[in-house]
């Protein structure tokens, strides 16, 4: 199951049984939006339309940014599978370090148990004001990490040399 997860606040203060019925119990973190990459669970999750928009990112000169659904999907899939193989190797290394069978965690990597989420954090707390999510949680202004759960989480980052 993949797709877009709208801009909202992930509340880490919930403990597991909290939350209203039908509402997922998220971890703490702050305001962000995300895109879950899950190619093994279906193909409808990927956008289909090419769009060119004006860059809304504050603090930059206004430029046109194009979105190409074909390259987006192929990059997501390539990235997902690369990270999955990295996870497979590292889980094997961890298992070996623990003194258990190196393939102990193999089963956890099948059937889309691994999960990849692109996360977009907002640069300024200001940018969340006026949104629907913020109206529902007016006291929440933190910008932070999304919940990370599971056996092992990899966080990719790049250094922008500008």
């Amino acid at each position, binding site marked *: *199951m*993949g*797709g*877009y*997860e*709208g801009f*909202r606040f992930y509340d880490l203060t919930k403990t597991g049984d909290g939350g*209203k019925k*039908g*509402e*997922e119990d998220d971890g703490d973190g702050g305001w962000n*939006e995300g*895109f*879950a990459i899950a190619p093994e*669970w*279906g193909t*409808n*999750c*990927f*956008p*289909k*339309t090419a*769009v060119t*928009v004006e*860059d*809304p*990112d504050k603090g930059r000169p206004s430029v046109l*940014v*194009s*979105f*190409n659904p074909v*390259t*987006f999907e192929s*990059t*997501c899939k*390539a*990235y997902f599978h*690369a*990270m999955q*193989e*990295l996870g497979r*190797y*590292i889980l094997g*290394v*961890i298992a*070996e*370090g*623990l003194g258990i069978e190196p393939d102990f965690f193999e089963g956890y990597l099948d059937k889309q148990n691994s999960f990849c989420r*692109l996360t*977009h954090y907002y640069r300024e707390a200001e940018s969340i004001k006026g949104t*629907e999510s913020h109206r*529902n949680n007016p006291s929440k202004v933190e910008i932070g990490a999304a919940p990370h759960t599971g056996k092992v989480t*990899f966080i*990719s980052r*790049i*250094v922008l040399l500008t």
Partner: protein
Amino acid sequence: MDPFTQTGYLSSPSGASTPFEVPKISLATPREHTVGALRHAALTSGFFQLVDIETYVSSELIVQMFDEARRFFQLPASEKAKVSLWFRRKDEVVTMALI
């Protein structure tokens, strides 16, 4: 300085904090070395940073993924909503959708 070098602080119960560098685990070394290094990092700092991961994921792919992600998130909300993972009801997240 290597822009990827990470530093952190270890706090003791007495309140003292000691700076430390997040250990780097190279995947370009033989597996048995990686096993030892990762185990040591997990037992000491509790954090580690993987380096030399080109075999698994290239720098180009990571940069490309960031670029594509930026382009996606800049789409208008109406476009992103078309692939929404959530159904919303009365401003409340109620269920997962879209398989």
